[in-house]
């Protein structure tokens, strides 16, 4: 039976905002699902609150709801759209949980809609650890000994039976959230306590420790005819004890014999059958004892997962696409293998290359956080690389991570073998580098194995890499053969230059002189057994290249590399749009990227895909190969964020044409001196600033420009190392920290515009005409990083005169910088004492910004597509003619859209196990975003909060604790809350201020005061015990006020919405008041865009 003809329309549930453990891999899977369904003539209805995704583009579904993923809203959508079926297995745990809730509420039955892709009993069998264990036993497998607990007392008793250390795993959470390893009762109380709270079923599992065992994953697919295939095996180089998302992993598995591998395969097949995943994909994890081969089944995910995205990119077998086809009735043998075009999908891919994935972390953003890697996932992104050998793939993957210190180096200054051996025993993001350097310093494979339990096979490969490095280092001059060996083992020209002391340019020149260049092989699912029709390439130093000649002119698009805080899915969105627009404009599109989670690295997105590190060397080699294959117009570098922008200058110096905004223009915008001149010429204001080399200078500058000031090291990314300081004392503290970060680098000191409104502008410029796409107003005041601040489009407090001033300033800057494409400018508006608004320019970025997808969705104009077309020579007037931009005028938002940032506080803990502080500041720390769109600001804001943090309470109690300088401005919203029927709880100062102003509240004890004589609760108790449904706590400075920090971490851990700014407080009150007595209205994006507001 091919397609199920009864399915005419499907509701696809997306995964919501990007969070740690659930990233843009679900945009990739969801986008594939939407494409497949539409190509089958099925009407697609989509819900996803994340505007930065490709899947929420209006053309990917017939009705796209950018709305909070809650059962109430999904029910409304079902009633309105009447889908025949719901597909919830491609939107991660969020979608699966939403489907479970709909089922529990009886909505599916009541509304007459069925789930496809997985049924509820199968999801439960797969995810409920107790049930899953019995299934594993039934099919003849074994599980780690474990005990299910529902209360702390049960946990403590259980740990005594299993013996410490024990692994704690909460049920029904994703990315290992709330799990950890407890070595003693103290650990257990902290970890299991949080786990019980995080688990929707208040259930945790205590498990015998199998730390140090080998860890494997198999990706399995099954169809309704009971055909089962294993798509990919993945081996974790980091053994058990580190979450697989935080592990360096390799595909295929490299250290199992066929007999052992087939045991895992047989178990996987029996499990998927017994669990009853009728159609679709799942992921099964195993631990194998390296001493005797004992196998333990760890867990399964009865859905498409992060590993499935990796497996899809690693093999060329598109799991999400196939899962969707299976869900609508096809069988595996009825689906064609896209790559060979002649063989069916009912086979198991075989690889003739090695794939390595390396995670990327962001601990520098959370200096308080414990950097140990455990069973809770902490990484924010990943890079993947492909090579014809493990050393080649590993070294490519390490440089793909684009983080200083990640690539191997052989500088042993300041480290000893003994230090490294003890350091590597504790897994951190630096462990592999410690292993490599330790081995280089003479540690034996046995010593390193006993410290880390990393399989000796991988260690031997690293030893071989070190030996090559040693040969290069000790060679008087570099022989050609050695250079050849080094390149085929993945050494970059930069690494070789570090080892030889020659410049990188000289190494590259030598290499090219002897004709030593990489060839490009093809990912073809079948190890060359059949011809591949999909140009999905990777480089290798080998004999034969497979790049096919072409006649069409090509445009090369540089992607954004691994996700990190400050550079995420929104940049992939822009790159993918460029590929679509340029393909349509008749170009051959070529994508270079190394992030396996993305839509851009789907072989369907561009005409050719190069899965390569985004370094100058690797990119130039691709360009060389493509220039040999046919005409290349140039490279687009302005859409993938800072990564490609950083390459633009080097590419231009190497003779490559950069399309759109030139590297000179980019430099101009980044150079404070040149940019300052530009502002001056155009009579634009910026906050006064100074640059200090010493502390004394810094104090002098601060006094001259007056506190508060924003201080930062001279070179920053994503707001790293920035802080707002209010006095000499905290300035001294910062200088000490900052100069530790970058020695010999001066510190920048800017006047901080207290209480200013921050404005974000996205615009297009073609050299003549400016198109102002959107003017967004931040809800948090200046000082909160724009990426972490909620913002609203259209701006609500900007009058037409000021708007005109913003437009004119934007045009002057775009012209002055020489923008050809997108520009993003941040302004601050200060209302001075005489109530005159004054505009300041904070910064200008001549590239796609984080807000491009948000603005594109709110206005219906595809900005990234337009930017790509401008870069290849189109004018704004042409784009107006093509209907991509309005016939005249600037961007007009439909309805009111609010963007809210989502922050990963609950992922990080301090070394002592307590939570990290959750105060917003000038450093960006959010991982993702949501969008709320409505007719009023209040409703749009309430939607954004619901989507990001869970619903705002509409009644009940609110806890307020305000800093001295915020009390005045908080009075009105507090009064409104009280009038709306909320009970207010306050601490001493706030209590007094409110009661003097006629707002009554109940006084509670501070945490530091402890409970009262009669058991009166403290503020923290109120939150922990669930008395209050909303916490308003505005701090002064960061981390200094112990009470505030305790309050905020308690709120995060209890999952109570916690607002830390007055502006956020005001917006929340507006939202609550708007929502009281009615539910959200819902409209699809297509409906919004059809309105002519």
């Amino acid at each position: 039976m091919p397609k199920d003809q009864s399915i005419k329309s499907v509701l696809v549930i997306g995964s919501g905002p990007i969070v740690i453990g659930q990233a843009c891999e679900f945009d990739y899977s969801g986008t594939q699902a939407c494409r497949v369904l539409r190509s089958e003539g099925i009407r697609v209805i989509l819900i996803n609150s994340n505007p930065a995704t490709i899947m929420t583009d209006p053309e990917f579904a017939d009705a796209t709801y950018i709305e909070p993923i809650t059962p109430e809203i999904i029910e409304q959508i079902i009633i309105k759209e009447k889908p025949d079926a719901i597909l919830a297995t491609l939107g991660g745990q969020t979608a699966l949980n939403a489907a479970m809730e709909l089922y529990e509420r009886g909505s599916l039955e009541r509304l007459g809609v069925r789930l496809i892709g997985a049924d509820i009993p199968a999801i439960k069998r797969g995810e409920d650890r107790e049930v899953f264990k019995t299934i594993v036993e039934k099919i003849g497998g074994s599980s780690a000994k474990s005990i299910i607990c529902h209360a702390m007392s049960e946990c403590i008793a259980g740990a005594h039976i299993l013996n410490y250390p024990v692994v704690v795993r909460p049920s029904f959470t994703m990315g290992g959230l709330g799990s950890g390893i407890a070595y003693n009762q103290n650990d257990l109380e902290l970890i299991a306590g949080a786990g019980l709270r995080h688990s929707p079923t208040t259930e945790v599992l205590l498990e015998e420790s199998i730390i140090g065992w080998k860890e494997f994953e198999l990706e399995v697919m099954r169809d309704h005819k009971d055909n089962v295939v294993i798509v990919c095996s993945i081996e974790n180089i980091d053994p058990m004890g580190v979450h697989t998302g935080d592990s360096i992993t390799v595909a295929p598995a490299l250290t199992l014999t066929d007999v052992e591998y087939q045991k895992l395969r047989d178990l996987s097949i029996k499990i998927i059958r017994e669990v009853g995943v009728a159609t679709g994909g799942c992921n099964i994890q195993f631990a194998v004892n390296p001493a005797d081969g004992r196998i333990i089944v760890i867990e399964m995910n009865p859905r498409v997962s992060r590993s499935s995205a990796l497996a899809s990119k690693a093999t060329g077998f598109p799991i999400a696409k196939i899962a969707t086809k299976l869900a609508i009735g096809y069988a595996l043998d009825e689906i064609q293998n896209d790559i060979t075009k002649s063989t069916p999908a009912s086979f198991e891919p075989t690889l003739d290359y090695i794939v390595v994935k390396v995670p990327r972390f962001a601990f520098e953003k959370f200096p308080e956080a414990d950097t140990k890697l455990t069973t809770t996932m902490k990484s924010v992104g990943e890079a993947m690389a492909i090579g014809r050998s493990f050393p080649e793939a590993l070294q490519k993957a390490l440089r793909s991570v684009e983080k200083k210190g990640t690539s191997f180096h052989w500088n042993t200054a300041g480290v000893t073998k003994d230090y490294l051996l003890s350091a590597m025993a504790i897994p951190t993001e630096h462990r592999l580098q410690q292993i490599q350097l330790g081995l280089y310093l003479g540690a034996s494979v046995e010593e390193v194995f006993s410290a880390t339990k990393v399989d000796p096979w991988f260690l031997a490969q690293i030893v071989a890499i070190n030996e090559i490095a040693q040969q290069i280092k000790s060679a008087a001059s570099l022989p050609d053969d050695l250079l050849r060996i080094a390149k085929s083992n993945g050494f970059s020209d930069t690494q070789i230059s570090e080892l030889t002391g020659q410049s990188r340019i000289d190494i590259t020149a030598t290499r090219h002189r002897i004709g030593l260049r990489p060839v490009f092989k093809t990912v073809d699912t079948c190890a060359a057994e059949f011809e591949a029709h999909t140009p999905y390439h990777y480089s290798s130093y080998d004999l034969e290249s497979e790049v096919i000649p072409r006649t069409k002119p090509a445009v090369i698009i540089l992607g954004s590399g691994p996700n990190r805080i400050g550079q995420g899915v929104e940049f992939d969105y822009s790159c993918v749009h460029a590929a679509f627009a340029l393909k349509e404009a008749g170009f051959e599109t070529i994508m270079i990227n190394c992030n396996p989670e993305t839509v851009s690295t789907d072989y369907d997105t561009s005409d050719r895909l190069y899965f390569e590190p985004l370094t100058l060397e690797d990119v130039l080699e691709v360009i060389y190969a493509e220039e040999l294959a046919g005409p290349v117009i140039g490279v687009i570098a302005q859409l993938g964020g800072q990564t490609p922008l950083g390459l633009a200058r080097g590419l231009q110096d190497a003779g490559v044409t950069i399309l759109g905004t030139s590297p000179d223009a980019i430099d101009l915008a980044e150079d404070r001196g040149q940019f300052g001149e530009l502002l001056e010429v155009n009579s634009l204001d910026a906050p006064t600033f100074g640059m200090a080399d010493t502390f004394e200078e810094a104090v002098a500058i601060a006094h001259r420009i007056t506190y508060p000031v924003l201080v930062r090291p001279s070179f920053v990314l994503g707001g790293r190392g920035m802080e707002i300081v209010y006095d000499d004392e905290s300035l001294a503290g910062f200088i000490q920290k900052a100069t530790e970060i970058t020695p010999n680098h001066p510190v920048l000191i800017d006047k901080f515009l207290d209480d200013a409104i921050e404005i974000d502008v996205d615009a297009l410029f073609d050299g003549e005409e400016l198109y102002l796409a959107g003017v967004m107003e931040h809800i948090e005041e200046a000082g909160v990083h724009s990426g972490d601040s909620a913002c609203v489009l259209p701006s609500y407090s900007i009058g037409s005169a000021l708007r005109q001033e913003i437009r004119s300033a934007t045009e002057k800057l775009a012209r002055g910088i020489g923008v050809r494409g997108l520009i993003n400018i941040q302004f601050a508006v200060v209302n001075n004492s005489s109530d005159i608004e004054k505009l300041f320019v904070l910064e200008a970025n001549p590239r796609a910004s984080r807000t491009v997808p948000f603005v594109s969705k709110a206005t219906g104009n595809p900005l990234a597509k337009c930017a790509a077309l401008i870069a290849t020579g189109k004018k704004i007037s042409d784009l107006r003619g093509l209907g991509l931009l309005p016939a005249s005028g600037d961007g007009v938002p439909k309805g009111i859209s609010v963007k809210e940032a989502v922050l990963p506080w609950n992922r990080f803990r301090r070394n002592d196990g307590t939570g990290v502080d959750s105060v917003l500041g000038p450093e960006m720390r959010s991982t993702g975003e949501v969008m709320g769109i409505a007719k009023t600001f209040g409703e749009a804001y309430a939607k954004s909060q619901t989507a990001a943090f869970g619903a705002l309470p509409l009644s009940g109690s609110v806890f307020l604790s305000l800093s001295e300088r915020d009390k005045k401005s908080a009075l009105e919203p507090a009064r409104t809350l009280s009038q709306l029927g909320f009970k207010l709880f306050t601490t001493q100062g706030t209590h007094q201020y409110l009661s003097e102003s006629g707002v009554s509240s109940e006084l509670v004890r501070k945490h530091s005061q402890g409970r009262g004589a009669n058991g009166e609760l403290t503020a923290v108790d109120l939150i922990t015990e669930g008395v209050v449904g909303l916490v308003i706590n505005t701090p002064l400075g960061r981390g200094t006020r112990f009470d505030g920090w305790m309050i905020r971490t308690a709120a995060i851990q209890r999952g109570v919405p916690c607002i830390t700014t007055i502006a956020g407080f005001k917006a929340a009150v507006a939202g609550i008041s708007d929502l009281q007595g009615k539910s959200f209205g819902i409209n699809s994006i297509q409906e919004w865009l059809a309105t002519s507001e």
Partner: protein
Amino acid sequence: MSKAFLVLDDGTVFEGESWACEGETFGEAVFSTGMTGYQETLTDPSYHKQVVIMTAPHIGNTGMNSSDEESKKIWVSGFVVRNPSPVVSNWRSERTLEDDLIANNVVGIKGLDTRAITRHLRDLGSMRVGIFSNTELTREEMIIKVRKSPQMAGSFLADSVSTLEKYIVPAIGEKKFTVVALDLGIKAATPRSMSERAIEVHVLPATSSMTEIMALKPDGIFLSNGPGDPATMVDAIALVREIMAAHIPLFGICFGHQIIGRALGFDTYKLPFGHRGINQPVKNLRSGVVEITAHNHGFAVAAPVEGNFNTIYGAGFVSHICLNDGVVEGLELLESPVFSVQYHPEAAAGPHDANYLFDQFVTLMTNAKVSNA
């Protein structure tokens, strides 16, 4: 370590480094796409007179052990690997791959672009190959030597791989059946799969006569895999016709399947580059289910896939096909207790999806016993 050359019949030369034994070797160039199971491949007698190119780059990682060998020796005539492992890491490993290759006098070559060779063979078909290491020969001399080596088509190889003495693999548990397995190049996993099903397996030399077989009063007869061109197996084909005429349950795999095909009157033909891997999708045409199977065959049976066919042993049908290229992968007779598959239900190396075929053999023998009783 010295320079080594892989020289193909069509004059293409790939340069690599010597590995395992140095010297010269010749055979048919075939590629195997399995990512695991090099030990099983090397010890599979079907690879006799073949030079095997492994498409997976890292080979030898898990060493060699005595429980995974499919026969007592390594049969390949040459072994081509991109990156042999410098170390062994596995709890069951007893020896290194290179040591075993040297002990078996196998000439190897490493460090060449195995994907380029595979693509070449895929496009132009399997062909003769030579490996030359530490050689004084010129390219032309090497090519001439390769062209003078024997072709696979027309090769009779069964007698050089078959056991000389019969041996018995006892049933595990209580014995229920006796099966005679004709060794045309049998792998250890095959009698093991039968013994696990309460079958006592008498493994007999390929040249055994009907009388010798019948003396053992078998409940069923099994024809194994093996190397060579099935068209050369004239005696075995005649023997199979006698077995079919006697209505004794008969099960053949791989080479045995091709012999059954010829005994039924079908032709066999050489595939362009064969099926060698452990990921081959085979569809069971009766159940509609796809099984992922282990293959190692360069020849195939030409039988009509649609509908039933008629033979002098009654009607039959093609029971399995390969979904990649539509090649016949299974035959079954409707009126005689005979079936065969082109692939390896015993796996080793490879997936276990097809081991139900041994159960089918048991059913066939059970039914025969019932009807004879």
